[in-house]
């Protein structure tokens, strides 16, 4: 178990190091930030002073080491327009993104698990075919198209949901829930559609796989009702691949949030990144990318651990 843990921790650390390195390279490729930070008529001597202050006059390997140290201290430079530490501005947006991703995830799981289970139980029925067709569409349609169609039909034409922004208030206060749920519903369906489709398809195939096993036939033969055969004997054994893909999908949701937030003007970290690209505020873009990537790595690391705990065989693989 210890060896398994060390290997996973190492992998996560290497991934993080890779991300930091990529951020460093893109930072350097983005050119000299000094002219962007000073007024256009600043004298050369002033520019050189700022450059020395930021350490930009040193050789690249030295800059790289300094940069690694700064990242470890959570320092990614200041926002060019907001005059605040970029990482703080990005961190501020993280709760909104997590709110969206978690709601999308819960929605996806709550719909997909029963849908996949029923599809498998009633294989080749109308329900199965319909659910699997919807799942195929959910996997093929681009996220932003799903979002825009939901805005068009449920938001603008039927007027059931607001089409942009986040609800006011806090999840801790139940009287705010209607407004918050109302705002988060469409973005969450949009973001969760792909995960929902994948989980439903995998649940169906995992359950069908277990259905062929001898112990299922035994359970049926001893006269158990279909419900308890499916839930107690089948679903429990099909759970491992399903949980794995659920974990992987949660990570993917964090990446997809960038697009969904743009469609719904959801004030999360993805919208911040896209807006900062157009205002050429690179430190913010880099902080956002780094934060989301880190969250992704951490989530996948936890999924790996959970997987090892559920299925002892893979600890020794």
């Amino acid at each position, binding site marked *: 178990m210890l060896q398994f843990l060390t290997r996973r921790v190492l992998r996560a650390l290497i991934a993080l190091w890779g991300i930091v390195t990529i951020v460093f390279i893109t*930072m350097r490729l983005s050119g000299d930030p000094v002219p962007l930070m000073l007024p256009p008529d600043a004298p050369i001597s002033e520019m050189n002073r700022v450059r020395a202050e930021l350490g930009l006059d040193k050789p690249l390997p030295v800059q790289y080491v300094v940069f690694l140290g700064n990242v470890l201290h959570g320092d990614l430079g200041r926002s060019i327009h907001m005059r605040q530490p970029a990482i703080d501005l990005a961190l501020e947006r993280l709760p909104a993104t997590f709110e969206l991703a978690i709601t999308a995830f819960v929605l996806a799981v709550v719909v997909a698990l029963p849908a996949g289970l029923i599809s498998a139980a009633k294989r080749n029925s109308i329900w199965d075919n319909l659910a699997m067709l919807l799942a195929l569409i959910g996997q*093929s349609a681009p996220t932003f198209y799903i979002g825009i169609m939901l805005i068009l039909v449920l938001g603008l034409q039927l007027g059931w949901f607001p089409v942009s922004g986040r609800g006011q208030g806090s999840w801790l206060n139940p009287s705010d829930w209607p407004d918050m749920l109302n705002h988060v519903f469409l973005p969450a369906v949009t973001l969760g559609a792909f995960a929902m489709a994948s989980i439903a398809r995998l649940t169906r195939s995992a359950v069908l796989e277990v259905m062929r096993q001898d112990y299922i036939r035994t359970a049926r033969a001893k006269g158990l009702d279909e419900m308890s055969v499916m839930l107690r004997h089948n679903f429990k054994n099909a759970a491992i691949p399903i949980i794995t893909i659920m974990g992987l999908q949660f990570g993917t949701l964090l990446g997809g949030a960038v697009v969904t937030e743009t469609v719904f003007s959801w004030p999360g970290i993805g919208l911040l990144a896209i807006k900062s690209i157009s205002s050429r505020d690179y430190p913010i873009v880099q902080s956002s990318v780094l934060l989301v990537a880190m969250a992704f790595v951490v989530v996948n690391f936890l999924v790996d651990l959970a997987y090892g705990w559920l299925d002892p065989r893979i600890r020794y693989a």
Partner: protein
Amino acid sequence: MSDTISVLPTASASEPRRSGANLGYHVRRIPPVVWLCAATLLIMVLAAVFAPLVAPRDPTDQTLMLRLKPPIWLADGEPGYILGTDEVGRDILSRIIYGAQVSLTIGLVGVLIGSILGTVLGMLAGYFSGPIDETIMLLADMQLAFPFILLAISIIAVLGPDPANAVPWKLIVIVGISGWMTYARVCRGVVLTLKEREFVHSVRALGGSDNRILFRHILPNILSPVVVLATLDLARLIILESTLSFLGLGVQPPSPSWGGMLGQGRQYLDTAWWLSTFPGMAIMLTTLAISRGGDWLRDVLDPTLRSG
């Protein structure tokens, strides 16, 4: 090179026509839905290739008198503009047809880049284990470790999007390198098992070089999984390209691209729904046809690739 080597059965001949026979068997009983997918794709490809002949108008031709006209079957529709016009009076149908050219080309070239890169790296990793293998697999793990769209966004943020009215090379390369890891992993796995097989040992005993073993004897055995992966990957790449174009980071206006049309049409959603609905349908039909067709192809050619 001695002549005897060419007498030896090559890798592809060692398992003769296994997939070929399967394919022939399945061609006779292709399910109707797969025919439907094939027909959809054929229409898309023909539209893309013959765009100048098929499209009713020039896709960049603006007619300001005819701005935001609805599709022809609605009350205010303008004859000759079947799917309506956009905010500067360009014909939506013509832009979708030319958009097919853009999306399919970028997708296909991207798949070509990704599959060749991934296959070669995967073969090298599997064949020469040790540091080469570990470096390549470390790179693959790193790229898999975080969402590619973030990498794409940060690269484009720094380099700037491709200029309008030019071949979008940056976009093509970014889309192309997005998926090499899958090919590399699969190919590495296949090579690991193949390189211990008798036919490889015999070629080596007869003095065949590594190059010859890899490209003449191992490569033919890898091609069928690679073709399957490439088909499924094409749908992903088309979505990636349209997403980047939607965000304003991909194909730049006024070049027509499906994602870009959606991105610009979004602002008119409450008054002119046709601006974003039809280009999105084009993306969805294309990717749906490719994925469904690809699923079928996978089940026929290489069921072992099935997952999720």
